[in-house]
Structures are given as structure tokens and as C-alpha cells.
């Protein structure tokens, strides 16, 4: 049955996966372009000084910051808007599988796809940055991306949870909460500023559980 759910989520997500993979390639290409432009423009040494002292790299890889957010948002929308539109979620909730398994496996599968995109982006970035910069810069730059990836995961879980919630009043309240929580992951202005990363991971880690409550309310007939 898990296979069947995987099949359904795959049908909904596959074009999104492809588009995001394409955007990932474009983002990495943009990063390469920006990095090379600045090296050319500033000279290698001076560029390194800007990269090391002024966190210039964060500006050059700006799409790496935004892309997980777009991906999380897109995947949540692609997966759950078709389910909720026209009450279609009723079909899924009537499947002979417990609601909990259905919901958790749906977001689990979506998250796996998100993770795949993130890993693709992460290793791509690794390659891109390693060409021009020393290991210290590469490490700091990659560490800087971790909160962004957490932020993308947060937005995926939260938007899924919001879409699955049947009442608009609740959706608006949750929307505010989601904004506040996601902002937590985009507060850095220099490299590798995040400490107590475990606390930030923990907040994302509990988020998948929220969908249960939305499902429960749907089943109770709340509008």
C-alpha cells in the first residue's frame, strides 16, 4: 500500500521534480557565473578577501538560499492542493489504510523527494565552490546552507499542514505561525552563524506530526 501511495505522490510530483532539478542546474550555473564574474572583476586575491571577510559568497549563491524554499512550497502545493480541491481528500481518507499512515507516508514521501533535490543542490554547490575557493571557505559556505535547507523543509511541512487543514480561519492562523517559524532559518548575514543547530533541527523534526491534526479535523467534518 505504501507503494501505491508512493505511486500517487510520484504522479503528482514528477513534473515538479524535473522543473526543480532544472532550476537547481540554473541556480548552480548562476552561482558559477557570479563567482567567475566577481573573480574577473575584482581579481582573485581581492575576491577572496571579499569572500572571506564580507561573506560575498552568500550573495553569489543567493539562489541556493531561495531554492529549497521554493521547492518545499512547490512540493506541498503539488501534493496536497489536488487532494483538497473539490473535497478530493475524501477519496484518500476512505482508502483502506489508517489515516495516520496515509498522512505520514504522504509527507514522508514528499520530504524524501525534497531531500533528494536538496542533496543534488548541496553536492552541486560543493563542486561549484570547490573549484575556486579553499576548503575553509567551502566548509563555511556549505555549513551556511544547512539552515536554508532546514527552512525549506519547514516550509514543506508547514504548507502541507496548512493545506490539509479544512478551515480557513485556522489556515490563516497557521500561516502566521509558519511565517514566524520559517523566518528562523533565514536570519544569517555571514557564514556559519548558526549555533545550537540541534534546536533548529528539532523544531523542523516535530513538524510532520502536525498533519495528523489537520486530517483529524477534516474527518470530523469541520469546514
Amino acid at each position: 500500500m505504501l507503494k501505491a501511495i508512493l505511486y500517487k505522490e510520484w504522479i503528482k510530483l514528477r513534473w515538479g521534480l524535473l522543473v526543480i532539478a532544472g532550476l537547481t542546474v540554473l541556480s548552480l550555473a548562476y552561482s558559477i557565473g557570479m563567482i567567475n564574474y566577481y573573480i574577473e572583476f575584482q581579481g582573485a586575491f581581492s575576491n577572496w578577501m571579499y569572500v572571506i571577510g564580507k561573506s560575498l559568497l552568500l550573495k553569489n549563491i543567493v539562489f541556493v538560499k531561495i531554492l529549497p524554499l521554493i521547492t518545499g512550497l512547490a512540493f506541498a502545493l503539488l501534493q496536497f492542493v489536488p487532494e483538497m480541491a473539490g473535497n478530493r481528500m475524501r477519496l484518500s481518507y476512505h482508502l483502506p489504510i489508517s489515516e495516520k499512515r496515509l498522512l505520514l507516508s504522504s509527507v514522508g514521501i514528499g520530504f524524501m523527494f525534497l531531500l533528494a533535490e536538496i542533496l543534488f543542490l548541496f553536492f552541486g554547490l560543493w563542486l561549484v565552490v570547490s573549484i575556486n575557493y579553499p576548503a575553509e571557505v567551502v566548509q563555511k559556505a556549505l555549513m551556511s546552507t544547512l539552515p536554508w535547507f532546514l527552512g525549506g523543509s519547514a516550509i514543506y511541512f508547514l504548507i502541507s499542514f496548512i493545506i490539509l487543514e479544512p478551515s480557513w480561519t485556522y489556515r490563516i492562523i497557521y500561516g502566521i505561525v509558519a511565517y514566524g517559524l520559517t523566518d528562523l532559518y533565514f536570519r544569517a548575514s555571514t557564514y556559519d552563524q548558526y549555533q545550537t543547530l540541534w534546536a533548529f533541527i528539532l523544531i523542523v523534526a516535530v513538524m510532520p506530526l502536525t498533519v495528523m491534526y489537520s486530517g483529524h479535523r477534516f474527518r470530523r467534518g469541520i469546514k
Partner: protein
Amino acid sequence: MLNKLSRYVIVLLIVVVSALYLPDFFSVLFDKKIDTPRIDYSAVINEFVYHNYHGMGQIDYGDIAGNTYSEREYFQLLPFSYYATLEKWQQLPEEIEGFELSSKSIRKNSQFFRIQTKDINPPSVPIYILFEAESDYAQLRVPDDVFRLDNKIEFIDPVTNSVIEEKSERFQQAMLDAGFQFPADIVAGNPTNRKPFDEGYFITDANDDIFQLKMIKGEPECIKTGIDPGLDIRQIFVSENLRKEFYGWILTEDNKVYLIMYDGYKLKEVPTRGKDDKYAYDADEMTFRFYTYPVNRHIRISGDGFTKMIVVSNDFEYIDEHVETWTPYDKRTASIVKQFLFPFELSTYTPEKYIRLQMDYYWPRNLAGIGLSLLALVLFSRRRPWLDYVIVLLTGVFGLIGVLLVRHED
């Protein structure tokens, strides 16, 4: 069961968001700016003086003996600060304590530095640049390589992003010859070419010995400073100044500040306490400022609700001190109301420039808000699971918002 857990997860997420934003929002709305006098020491009357900004550009000038001054009088009391203006007014005294005053002589004999919490160990990339210390040019020239320093020293060419083997080996050897035990720990330098000359890096090694590394005519010069390795060093700061009195300063874990003197790397302790430990310097919460003037030196320690100023002679002989206090943030009305209202506050930005999830728990003032929240829950809400009460007990108004917004669905 899982549905209940799910609801509490949502409630807790609401608690987190509320605790992050509501107290902050409250502060933005209700915090009032407080007038904090700026104190200084006048070498003319040997007395602490102050000026105090009020709103609308209104400034009071006075001294701690109770005299008040006009702006002009006040400027004249502080020639080492306002010499440029005084010179323009042609009111710069000719000499003070035997020191002849001119803009140029004052500038040449003054030096200032400060230690802020965010400067001590900021997020940074451990890649450094080493200038040529005896350059043929008038100004420092930017080098064309950088170096890393941990288990060994390696110079890297930014153009090829590869290690420059020969130079690395030369420097490595020089460091080993000086007795340096890898790996390096603290690497302190001043990587800017906007300085008159270069003193390179002060580096602590595996034995906590401090070395100075410079490049002279392209060749490494590594010197073991002999500074006591028992000093529990937190950070070293290097700052080249034409006065050439000290290379830089050391901050220790027990909040002491030492200057590293040009005279054989001897340390000179800068007072960080004064007569008593009240308002003694704490690097995690306060800013330390050190001023060297032609006739004396000032130390200014500023924190929440106070400024402590210590004046010593050029030879670091204690002269005088003064503490100016005002209501610290915690004791202001808006802050007290905030602590009654909210049980705690979550924040992420730290004074050290890192981002960390941290909690200020407003015990015991928060009992008021927690009590009220519980009362509200009992009085104005129908029967609910016991865990709702526990959550409000622990998280006060944040939990109340959460359990009221997210209905219990049995």
C-alpha cells in the same frame, strides 16, 4: 493518541513563535529610551565631567561636583577630545602638565581601542593574509597569496586555488625552528592595509606559548614571545600604531586585559575592576574601552545601566574612578510589565554575532502572568484535557494562546 500529540505539537509551535515575537513586539511598542549620561575625565580640572543628551538636541554639561557648564566651557575642559574645535576657536591651552598641546601632538600621542562582545570570537573563515613588513613602498602592499594555519602553515594562491609548496615549507620550517608546536590555536592579526606598518600575527601554539610571525623581505620571522603560557587567553587583538607602545592586547578568560608591549613582549595589565568588583569588566556583557592620552589613560567599562570610568597615569598609576548608573533595562517599567506578562522570551541573535535559540526565563515575576493565564483558562473555557493546564502552567500566555486557538477535538 497521535491526534492529541499532533495538536500539542501545533500548540508548542505556537508557543515558540509567540515567545519569539510577542515580547519583542511589546518592547518595540513600550520601551522608552533612557537618558544615559556620557562621562569623561577632564585633565584641566582633574574631575569627572559629563554631558547628557535629552531629546530635541538639548544637551546638559556638568561635572560630578555639581557645576554646570556651557558647551564652550565644557569643550575647554576636554582638550584631548575636542582639540580640533578648540584650535579653530583658538582656545586650545598651550600646555597641560608639561605637555605642549597642538592638534598634531595630541593625535600623535593618543591611542584608542575597544573590546566588544561581538569582536571576541565572531564567525569567521580561518584564512589569513600576511603583509610584507619591510616593504619598499610607502604603503603596505596587498600580498598575492593567503595562508591557513592549523596543523601546518600553508600559503595558497587564489588564482590557482592551490598550495604554494616552497613558501609554505620555508615558513613551516621557520616556525618549527622557533619552537612552535603545531597545531596552532589562536591566530590573531590585523588583515588590513589601512595601517602604517605590519606586525604580522600573534599565534598561540599547542603548548599555549605565544609566537609572533612576520614576513621580512619575503622571509619568515617567527619569534617566541616568552609571554606566560599559563595565561588563560580568550583572544588576542593586534593593532599597529605609530606610537609603538604595544603590539596589541590580550583578553583572558577571567576578564583581564593585558597590553603586549614593544618592550620585550612584556605584559602590562590594564585595570578592569577599579577599587572594587562592583561593575568589574565582564567580556560577555560589557564593552571595554581604553584611551591613551598624552597626560593620562582612561578605561571605560560600559554595561546595562552603568558606565565605570577609571583614570590612571601614563605609568598605569591609579588616579581616580567614577561610576555613573541609571536604571538597567531589567528594572524599567516596560521591562517589568513584560516580565509579569510573558513567562519567558526566546531570541536568536547573540551579542557574539551568532544565531542561537536561547531562552530568558522571567522567574519569579512571570508567576503573575502564568497565574492569570491559568485563571483565564479555568474561568472562560469549557472543560479540557489536563495537559492543557500543564502547558499553560509552563508557558503562560503563550500556551494559553496555543490551547485556545487550536481546539481540542476529542
